[in-house]
């Protein structure tokens, strides 16, 4: 296990080094931030002064080396726009996004698993057909349109839920979260549901297929021959078997949810990193973009590690091989 983790850490460092180089070059290629940061009538002297203060007058390799050496000390530079450390700006916004993403992951499991099990148990039935048709809608309708429809129905027509913003937040166990207040919770519902739509559809499909592939297997018949109840067969024997592919896919999806959060955060004016990164790209706020991507890559690596650990918890055959 120690060797396994050590190897993963080395891999992670390599991945981070390569990404930082690619991102740094990529952002450099997009354009000159001075054009945006300075007023159009700025003099050459002012230009040179700002460029020097942001270290933009140095050649690219030197800029990169400076970046790496200070990044190693935990300093990812100051945001050009907010004039504060880039990491601070990101970490200020990140909890809102993570809260949104984890809530929609939980929603997709809480809604998707039962519906998938239900549909899978009765293939070809009316239940199955309706759930499957619903899941096609979840998949194929554009996410932003679903978001606007949710606002239309629940905020405009029914008036049940607020449509924009994060609402009041509070502190629970040292975490700053919307769950602490009722106002925060109702503000979270719509964006989380919007973000979860495609995931719910995905979980439904994976679960249904899993159930249908597992039910004809011999161990299910054997479980019946031992006189176990259908409930125990479904919720213990079948569910534990099909959780393996579901965990894999959701692990991968966690990353893309953070990416998709950009759309949802924009529609619902949710103050998360998705909105921050879009603004930063528009403003060519180089340190924030680079730091953001490195943070996201680190999270991906962590998620993958967690998925691998979950695997070995779910499947004893993997455990004995490791």
């Amino acid at each position, binding site marked *: 296990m120690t060797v396994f983790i050590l190897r993963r850490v080395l891999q992670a460092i390599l991945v981070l080094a390569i990404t930082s180089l690619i991102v740094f070059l990529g952002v450099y290629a997009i354009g000159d931030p001075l054009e945006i940061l300075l007023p159009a009538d700025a003099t050459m002297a002012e230009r040179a002064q700002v460029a020097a203060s942001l270290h933009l007058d140095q050649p690219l390799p030197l800029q990169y080396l400076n970046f790496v050496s200070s990044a190693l000390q935990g300093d990812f530079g100051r945001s050009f726009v907010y004039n504060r450390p880039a990491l601070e700006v990101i970490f200020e916004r990140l909890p809102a996004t993570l809260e949104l993403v984890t809530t929609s992951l939980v929603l997709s499991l809480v809604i998707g698993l039962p519906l998938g099990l239900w549909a899978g148990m009765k293939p070809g039935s009316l239940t199955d057909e309706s759930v499957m048709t619903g899941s096609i809608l979840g998949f194929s309708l554009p996410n932003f349109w679903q978001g606007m429809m949710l606002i239309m129905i629940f905020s405009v027509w029914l008036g049940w839920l607020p449509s924009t913003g994060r609402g009041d937040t509070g502190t629970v166990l040292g975490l700053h979260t919307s769950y602490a207040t009722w106002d925060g919770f109702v503000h979270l519902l719509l964006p989380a549901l919007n973000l979860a739509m495609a995931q719910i559809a995905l979980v439904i499909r994976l679960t249904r297929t899993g159930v249908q592939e597992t039910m*004809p*297997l*011999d*161990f299910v*018949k*054997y*479980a*019946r*021959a*031992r*006189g*176990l*109840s259908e409930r*125990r067969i479904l919720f*213990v*024997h079948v569910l*534990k*078997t099909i959780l393996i592919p579901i965990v894999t896919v959701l692990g991968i999806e966690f990353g893309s949810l953070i990416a998709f959060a950009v759309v949802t955060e924009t529609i619902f004016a949710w103050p998360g990193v998705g909105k921050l990164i879009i603004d930063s790209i528009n403003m060519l706020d180089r340190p924030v973009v680079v730091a953001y991507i490195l943070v996201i890559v680190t999270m991906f690596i962590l998620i993958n590690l967690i998925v691998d650990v979950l695997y070995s918890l*779910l*499947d*004893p*055959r993997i455990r*004995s091989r490791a």
Partner: protein
Amino acid sequence: MSETLLEVRNLKTWFETPKGTVKAVDGVDLTLNRGEILGLVGESGSGKSITGFSLLGLVDPPGKVVEGSILFKGEDLRAASNKRLQALRGDRIAMIFQDPMMTLNPVLRIGTQMIETVRAHANVSKAEARAMARDALGMVGIPRPEERIDAYPHEFSGGMRQRVAIAIALLHKPDLIIADEPTTALDVTIQSQILSEVQKLTREMGMGLIWISHDLGVVAELAQNVAVMYAGRIVERGTVDQVLDTPMHPYTRGLIDSLPMENDRGQPLKQIPGNAPPPLGRPEGCPFRPRCGFATDACLSEPSETGDLSRGWRCFHPLAQEVTA
């Protein structure tokens, strides 16, 4: 000891498919007493496994038991509710499957699967159930049961896994065990160990055992009575000695001849010509007719069973005149 445990009459299990009705089991009669081991022999597709599943109400759709009666200790299982069948399965009637690789759930510990089986039928605590499971493992010859009970199925060898399956079957001291080719996936030495183990346990516990197999050799070693199945019917039945020494049906003769024998060394193995008929295209009359060297025009109509439920056969041209019944 000769209390009747199971009486099956005219059992028919059919599968409705888009291409037609597959009559997997087509009028099977069986009788089994306490302490008796009955070998149910036949080729793949003869309907022997489906017969076993039909007894427990475990035939997968589109299969359905359409006719006949299954009397288990006087209770008609065909009329029994699902709840009643669920209560009987694993408790009074246990089943052992062919492939121990596939039947134990790979992601659950052996202990978990044994304890759930105990607790499905007995109102005992987890600790008591665990103790029962451990004792059962010890009884079938698994070393260090206290440790092994926490292992996963893949940590056992094939033979050990099948012992676990037997231990699970014995948990509630059932009246009847249906074993569906349980030793087919095992090598010969393990097979004979398990056979003698099963024989001993059946005798000691006074259970009835139906041993489904394609291997006449194994059945000869283990059982007292044999029923030979072909195309959904029992074509010959009797004691092991009767059936093996004086087979009446040409198919039984063929099965016996195709067993490798000591004095046939170097000779090509005899085989039954042709293949078992496809389930949807069974020939009219005697289903064995196209493969039979004795077939005449009489065989164009369906032979009825000659004899009774202790010694009988379905053939117009029995191979020998019965000397002693």
